[in-house]
């Protein structure tokens, strides 16, 4: 099974790191294949930025995302740019505070995760991406939580590991809550 994921936001949010954490969890600590590619403008910070991850049980031949099964959106600009690419009835994880204007007619399973707000609550807005990863893990069941934590360990600076793991837990909790609410 091949799952195509696109993460969109702006430079400086840790969009590419997010993709790397997902890919590492799958192919280094898990036994799936994974691939991450990114694209960004010439600016180092602030410009539109996307990271694409493909996770598959088999060898990955074509290395690009053609139509994402899952879209993670962390900026209005990325929302406008990418939302139409999402597969019909695909999964959309979106930070509602960063994307104030959302389409009403979208045929997708939409999960709103206020990642930036949750991260701010932890004192560091910068970990919003890891909050999103936590929610992602809870909602999609694509990852083993232990492997994801290993991946975070591998991908963040030691000094910020505790903070990132907390961010992951908070996001995971939030994700689980959404699912429970949706199910009931």
């Amino acid at each position, binding site marked *: 099974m091949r799952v195509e994921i696109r993460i969109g936001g702006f430079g400086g949010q840790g969009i590419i790191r997010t993709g790397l954490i997902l*890919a590492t969890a799958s*192919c*280094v600590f898990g036994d799936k*294949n*994974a691939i991450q*590619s990114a694209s960004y403008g*010439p600016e180092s910070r602030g410009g539109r930025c996307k990271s694409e991850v493909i996770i598959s049980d088999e060898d*990955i031949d074509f*290395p690009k995302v053609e139509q994402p099964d899952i879209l993670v959106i962390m900026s209005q600009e990325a929302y406008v740019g990418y939302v139409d690419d999402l597969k019909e009835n695909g999964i959309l994880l979106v930070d509602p505070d960063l994307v104030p204007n959302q389409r009403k007619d979208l045929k997708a399973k939409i999960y709103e995760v206020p990642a930036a707000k949750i991260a701010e609550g932890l004192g560091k807005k910068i970990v919003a991406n890891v909050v999103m990863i936590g929610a992602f893990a809870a909602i999609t069941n694509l990852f083993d939580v232990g492997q994801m934590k290993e991946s975070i360990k591998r991908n963040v600076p030691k000094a910020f590991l505790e903070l990132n793991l907390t961010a992951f837990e908070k996001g995971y909790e939030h994700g689980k809550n959404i699912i429970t609410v949706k199910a009931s």
Partner: protein
Amino acid sequence: MVSQREVLTGKHLMQGDVACAEGAIAAGCKFFAGYPITPATEIAERMARRMIEVNGMFVQMEDELASMAAIIGASWAGAKAMTATSGPGFSLMQENIGLAVMTETPCVVVNVMRGAPSTGQPTEGAQQDVMQSKWGSHGDYSIIALAPASVQEMFDLTIECFNLAETYRAPTFLLADGFTGHLWERVVIPSPEEIKIVERKKPVVSPDKYMPFKPDEDLVPPMACFGEGYCVHVTGLTHDELGYPKTTDPKVQHKLVNRLCEKMRKNANRIVRTYESMLEDAEVAVIAYGIPSRASLNAVKKARESGIKAGLLRLVTVWPFPEKQIEELATRVNAIVVPEMNCGQIVREVERVAKETPVHLLSKIGGELHSPSEIFEAIRRAAGI
């Protein structure tokens, strides 16, 4: 024998450029000279951090002319040497690539190709320097070029580039592309003893009997390096087997230049590597190299599902050109499709070798990869469906 510090044995998620640098270190590279350029900079950055750890030497030169000259010097000083660049830098290197060819200097040049001509598209991948790698410097000569299609191959083929460079005493190119260079994928690095490393052939005679450019039967002369007491003179001028300039004797030029070309032709069987998928009963063959071979494989599978007998020949070695393999393939398929990220370069070589068999170019420039469905459509058209 290389140590654990040189070989990061294990499973990693790695960027293509970084995997290339690690491949070089695993191959025993002890000297890297380079100049920053997108999308190859990460190779230099990795080398800057790693070379000192493995008792190697990293130097950032003032330009690519100097980088190429420096690795030639380092190679003659006994080190396995590499530089890495992209199109604009590769153009500057052509001068001393010719010098490396003429002086039979083992060295590895990585070209992470980007959209061109000129400054072009710095962040977009391309395959527009394939012919330049073959013919970019002036004169007649031959080189070796390999095209990686994955991050794993950025690692594996860099090692192979070193082994081939040291075996055949020629500049050897890793023709990567910006997409693969920046791609993150799993790389499995084996233990040091599992990695095959080739060391250069040294003279077995005493210095007074040594002729630095007298070839063995394989057309490759054993190489004494500076500081080994062999008193070698090296020149970019046409030279005799002693290495001395003989610039007006037609016989000397004839013998030398023909051998430089013949060296690769004669050893092509040992150098050339291709991969075949589903070609046994194929009626349409896709011939691809580098990153488009991945979409090609997907497209070939799609074609099979829809009842078209398609197969893939992937060229790991681009130069010397896998003539025999393609010549043979052309006799048993009805049509050939060649997807490349340029306006049509390798397709000319395929046409030359395939003779009567129709060859269809699927050109793609701009930075996007061929999609599997585009290649599938091309296969369908070639099959006459």
